[in-house]
């Protein structure tokens, strides 16, 4: 049986265009979750499934035109993000920036003069693979990501998972570049805190 992990993107594309259903199912299973989380974060949980389905249909129609200028994953994320943005507008749902005004200004890790008071610990592992060898940590991070404010989750998924450019993030989320930077920092910092806590305590 064909295993897409052993294929290049070019080979995967060739098989997809050739009507290989086994390869398509693997591609679906591999990328659907990432697409779903982008739709979930941008358009909201109620219409997320609908948005992802529409995005898949658009992607399948456009597949013969895919030129491989970005990765297949980035391409799919871009399609679902734009679909989600369109739907969000139709539903009159805007990306809230309220959550930017979070506890950063009173973060207890810093002293009053903004120096480190409680810096992060030394971690056991320098790569994602080393960190995630603890299955529990993987679950902790996933849970913490689902608790992020929607706008932070969207920024994190689009940028760190989808590899979209900062300009694309501004366009999709309809916020300024400085706000995108704040969203990304707050989201990454929360993930960092989860990892740090796990490194110290061995618990979520």
């Amino acid at each position, binding site marked *: 049986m064909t295993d897409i992990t052993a294929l290049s993107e070019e080979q995967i594309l060739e098989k*997809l*265009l*050739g*009507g290989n*259903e086994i390869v*398509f*199912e693997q591609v*679906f299973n591999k990328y*659907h*979750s*990432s697409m*779903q*989380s982008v739709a*979930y974060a941008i358009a909201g949980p109620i219409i997320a*499934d609908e948005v*992802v*389905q529409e995005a*898949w*249909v658009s992607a*399948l*129609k456009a*597949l013969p035109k895919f030129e491989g200028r970005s990765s297949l994953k980035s391409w799919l994320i871009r399609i679902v993000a734009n679909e989600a943005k369109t739907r969000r507008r139709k539903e009159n749902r805007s990306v809230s920036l309220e959550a930017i005004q979070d506890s950063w200004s009173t*973060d207890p890790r*810093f002293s009053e*003069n*903004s*120096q*480190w008071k409680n*810096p*992060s610990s*030394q*971690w056991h592992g*320098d*790569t*994602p*693979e080393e*960190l*995630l060898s603890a299955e529990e940590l*993987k679950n902790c*991070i*996933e849970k913490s*990501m*689902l608790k992020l404010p929607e706008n932070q989750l969207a920024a*994190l998924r689009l*940028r*760190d*998972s989808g*590899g979209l450019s*900062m300009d694309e993030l501004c366009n999709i989320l309809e916020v300024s570049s400085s706000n995108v*930077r*704040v969203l*990304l*920092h707050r989201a*990454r*910092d929360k*993930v*960092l805190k989860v*990892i*740090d806590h796990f490194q110290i305590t061995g618990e979520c």
Partner: protein
Amino acid sequence: MLPNCKQMAELASKNLDTPLTGMAWLKRKIHMLMCKHCSRYSDQIKLSSKTVSTLDLDLPINEDVKKNVEKTYQELHCRKDVSQ
């Protein structure tokens, strides 16, 4: 003036997306040479970002969506050439 540690934390993330240049780069570099906490935080925010990129959220797959998408794939890309 050099950035303080809190500003350095924000710069660590900013630098991942838009690498700092010129004086901003130099000031950050000098601060990191003097402050092991900021140097560590910078490495860790980069590692956190990389780790996130490898993770998929465990959202349940809607089986109806999967079926509909598979059907669309079959219709668009698996049609048999009836002329043969």
